[in-house]
């Protein structure tokens, strides 16, 4: 498997008028093409900061981010970023919402438009295309937000606690749906979460960050002996509890 994204010796200091905060220290890891990669760690350890730097939204203090071996410093068109809130624009229809990214990038044409519409069809949202976000349930809104991000055809998707605003039931269903969408579209994913179960059930690898300043504590390979792997059947596998215990202890020592 080829390395798609590499983070090398990354450091991040925040400056404010009161003090200086070292948020990330010497972070090193890489993500392979097609992998589902999760990042967990105590709150305030710098997870969101790390994603924002990878996305190019936040400057780094030192270190490198490489995508397919090339240094990136800006907002890369290879990256899609999905935030915790769905951030749908209430004054636009669902169709117009999913085209928002393309519109911003000036890339609306028949081809990109039909690609986006096909995503809507594929994931059972097409009949809602002329509705407004307020008419949709939380889980549907989150899927619309995902399609908006996928419409720009990113190679890497970043998810920052993208499901934590959903209630438990919906969350299990939506993570399952989204997992399948991402595998189907063959998108490499980096997900930040607080939820150890969510990380185990979806990921190929889980990175554990220490408390602030965040450094890599350990990277775990997650492997299940299941044919049609899905987050839901992972949760029922005996291996699941083993992974859970390991990760839970590792997080617990810090807090």
């Amino acid at each position, binding site marked *: 498997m080829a390395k798609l994204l590499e983070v090398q010796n990354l450091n991040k200091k925040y400056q404010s008028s009161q003090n200086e905060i070292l948020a990330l220290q010497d972070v090193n890891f890489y993500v392979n093409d097609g992998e589902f990669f999760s990042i967990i760690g105590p709150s305030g350890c710098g997870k969101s900061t790390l994603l924002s730097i990878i996305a190019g939204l936040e400057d780094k203090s030192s270190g490198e981010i490489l995508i397919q071996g090339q240094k990136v410093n800006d907002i890369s068109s290879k990256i899609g970023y999905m*935030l915790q809130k769905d951030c749908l*624009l209430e004054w636009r229809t669902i169709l117009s919402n999913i085209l928002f990214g393309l519109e911003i990038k000036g890339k609306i044409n028949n081809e990109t438009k039909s690609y986006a519409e096909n995503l809507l069809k594929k994931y059972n949202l097409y009949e809602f295309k002329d509705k407004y976000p307020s008419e949709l349930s939380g889980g549907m809104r989150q899927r619309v937000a995902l399609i908006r991000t996928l419409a*720009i055809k990113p190679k890497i998707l970043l998810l920052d606690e993208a499901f934590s605003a959903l209630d438990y039931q919906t969350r299990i269903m939506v993570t399952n749906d989204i997992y399948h969408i991402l595998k189907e579209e063959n998108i490499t994913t980096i997900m930040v979460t607080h939820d150890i179960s969510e990380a185990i059930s979806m990921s190929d690898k889980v990175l554990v960050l220490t408390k602030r300043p965040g450094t890599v504590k350990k990277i775990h390979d997650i492997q299940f002996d299941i044919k049609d792997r899905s987050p839901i059947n992972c949760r029922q596998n005996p291996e699941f509890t083993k992974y859970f215990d390991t990760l839970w202890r590792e997080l617990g020592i810090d807090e």
Partner: protein
Amino acid sequence: MSENNISIERKQYLKKKRQKKYLILLTQIAILVCFLALWEILANFGIIDSFIMSQPSRILNTFFNLTSNDLLMHIWVTTYETIIGFLIGTLLGTLIAIILWWSDFIAKVSEPFLVVLNSLPKVALGPVIIIWVGAGTPAIIVMAIAISLIVTILENLNGFMKTDKDIIKMAKTFNASKFQILTKVVIPANLSTFINSLKVNIGLSLVGVISGEFLVSKAGLGYLIVYGGQVFKLDLVMTSVLILGIVAGLMYASVLLLEKIILHTKKFK
């Protein structure tokens, strides 16, 4: 749901609601009628002095002799001064708010000035304005702008600043430029603030125009009121106030209509 599916409870509920609405309207009309009738009768019996207090029948009389008093001309003058003041105040205010949103530096620099100007009673600037732009229509319009401008800037800027940070971040993940963030996120998200400032400004502009007309005293309803007061033509004063009320109501109604149009086109874009 079709008509015959409605349950009896629901029917009764709707009926009660409708009855209450009519009752309120009826009471309002009754109060108005009683007030006017009482005024008329008391004046007729000489219990109140109709020379000082005027009288509904005399107001009506003046009102229907519109042409003899050049009333139409005065109404027109006040209306167009208000509309021009309103348009300039609102558009300029919104434009300045956009500039201040764009440049944090300019916003920080101008903040204390805006705060002071906002709390200053603008009518106090009247004489200065007259000296600067001359005692005429321009002075009145400047007055109307002075009253609505600062409020518009502050209201809109406040709305712009409060735009959901996460939505702006979302737009940035698509590499949106500042101009795109402005036009595709900040402005549409603040449409209701803008419409609100339209509603407030129509009233404020009218206040500006009337106080301007008080000072400049050449034409307009404000002039008529001052003039009527000076020559003790209370019928004229009362009629002017009545018309002013009607003009204000109509202007507010047209802003409501504008709101409907804006919201409508927005939905079907």
